């Protein structure tokens, strides 16, 4: 059985079909039960990791064969520009709120990582690798590298935070009284970048557009404040 699965994952067709099939299955379950905890992305990823580990399929094989799906990330981020345009009026009226929220979010993101990780006695390179965890992968890896972190490790934290944010974010945001669509979009985009934005789009068009905008702003601010904050704490 494991050999058969291993052999099947050598083919692009099967790897793509398995990924899409699992996603469709988990999305159907999610639509039935409507609880954000059953995030289809999270469940598909966990399921694939279990299957690939169990059948000894190296990640590199899976990665190569599903590159077509991964490729679509770039165009989908660019496409957020259209959502921004659609919400232009609202964004213009809320420019100060958007800029303040993303700036405060970026400082809080880095400072909280430094303080908590220091309490655990974590090494400097691990702390720096975690600091940009709320930022979209390409920016986060750049920030990590520039400040002495390990970029591939950073990419893992970015993904974990994104999935966690997209999964629990929609529940928590409602509970703590963040009600304006703009504020919801800012919460999701600043804490969970693209994966959070994918979840924000489910809440509404405005939430999605603001979330998409805050990915970029969060990235820029984090790149700017991280060196200064590290200097302050070390």
């Amino acid at each position: 059985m494991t050999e058969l699965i291993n052999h099947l994952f050598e083919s692009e067709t099967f790897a793509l079909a398995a990924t899409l099939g699992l996603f469709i299955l988990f999305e159907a379950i999610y639509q039935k039960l409507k609880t954000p905890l059953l995030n289809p992305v999270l469940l598909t990823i966990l399921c694939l990791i279990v299957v690939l580990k169990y059948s000894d399929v190296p990640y590199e094989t899976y990665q190569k064969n599903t590159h077509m799906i991964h490729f679509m990330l770039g165009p989908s981020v660019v496409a957020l520009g259209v959502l921004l345009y659609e919400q232009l009026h609202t964004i213009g009226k809320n420019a100060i709120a958007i800029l303040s929220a993303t700036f405060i979010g970026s400082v809080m993101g880095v400072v909280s990582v430094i303080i908590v990780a220091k309490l655990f006695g974590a090494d400097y390179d691990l702390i720096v690798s975690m600091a940009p965890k709320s930022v979209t992968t390409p920016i986060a890896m750049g920030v990590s590298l520039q400040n002495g972190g390990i970029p591939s490790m950073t990419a893992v934290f970015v993904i974990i935070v994104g999935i966690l944010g997209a999964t629990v974010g929609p529940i928590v945001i409602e509970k703590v009284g963040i009600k304006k669509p703009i504020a919801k979009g800012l919460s999701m985009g600043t804490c969970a970048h693209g994966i959070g934005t994918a979840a924000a789009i489910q809440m509404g068009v405005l939430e999605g557009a603001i979330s998409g905008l805050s990915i970029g702003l969060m990235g820029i601010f984090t790149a700017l404040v991280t060196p200064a904050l590290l200097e302050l704490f070390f």
Partner: protein
Amino acid sequence: MIRGFMLILVMLSLGTLINEITDLPIPGNVIGMIILFICLYTKIIPYDWVKDAAHSLTRRMSLFFIPAGVGMMNYLDLLSENWLMITVVIVVSMFAVMFSAGWTGQLLGKKDEDYDGAN
């Protein structure tokens, strides 16, 4: 639809090119998003040309993160060795960002009387 996809890919290439020739710490896809927005704003690209392609991409965005997420499988050792610290750091910091940005937005954001809630 195809025209829309083509334009989005052109913006992505432009963004990637700008990222490569400048030393901007912003990834090519985010630069592409900004250029596309500017082109729509200045009417260089008509909204109707890209609308459908863009919506079909953003609606399915979460699916595109799966291959990268599966990449976590290469770091299971690192994660299991430091799981407690990593869990606490990630949870605390994620909520710190979510709440600080969310409440700032809630406090400073305008009343959304113009928001029609259309989806």
